[in-house]
């Protein structure tokens, strides 16, 4: 059987991959996908803790799963708004490369 620590390490590794993607890639769509990876890594550790903390009735703690449900909803809304912003940006600048978008740079 896999332990709680295994799930947490796998979740941390997925978060690290997403974080490295945000830091290393320069294509704004890839950065956005890496953000999704990070959100889902957090979801995995939440569900692992939910399954680990069994209540008096012998069932998992479903509060964490409701939280994950909310996170998935917010992430779906975030993807829709973010992609609309990327499309608007592409229409204005004809690029998805973050180094070409530096008007706000100090």
């Amino acid at each position, binding site marked *: 059987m896999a332990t709680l620590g295994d799930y947490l390490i796998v979740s941390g590794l997925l978060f690290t991959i997403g974080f490295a993607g945000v830091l290393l890639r320069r294509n704004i769509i890839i950065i956005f996908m890496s953000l999704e990876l990070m959100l889902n890594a957090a979801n995995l550790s939440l569900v692992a803790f939910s399954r680990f903390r069994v209540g008096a009735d012998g069932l998992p703690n479903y509060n964490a*799963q*409701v939280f994950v449900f909310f996170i998935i909803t917010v992430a779906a809304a975030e993807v829709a*708004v973010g992609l609309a912003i990327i499309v608007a940006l592409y229409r204005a600048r004809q690029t998805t490369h973050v180094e070409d978008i530096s008007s706000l740079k100090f």
Partner: protein
Amino acid sequence: MPAYLFWFFALLMLIFGAAVVINRGPVASALSLVLSFLGLAALFMSLDAFFIGIIQVLVYTGAVMVLFLFIIMLLDLRAEERRKIKTVTFVGGLAVALALFVQICLVVGQLRSAQETFPALPAAPGDDVHAVGLLLFNGYNLPFQIMAVLVLVATIGVIVLSKRELR
């Protein structure tokens, strides 16, 4: 779920997660992300969270990834031309990410219950859609309605963003 299935799906998720970051073309990245999320949904089901697993497949691999692919094809993005990425930037970014992972490992190492396996559930746990739904509408009714407003606002925002010409 047997241990070898856990490691199989965890490796599937991590390898294709890494492929998202490594691939040059956005389409290949998006398809890798689909496979990575399928592995993640299997991990959710290995934790007896069947509802969350199904939602993961429906929302992420069904809706979100189709949206991603739609935008990639709409913008007609080719594989990005190789630009010189500064070595300092590359090494620095990798070092920061690795430092984060080492810290996560240290925290998990400190956690006393990390070595324990998951406690057994009663013979037929089954109906977790029922349990999650009951909790959602009884305990979290107000957040649920706020979420509905949020989705409405996001819909209107997307329409406004895509209609107006930005300068």
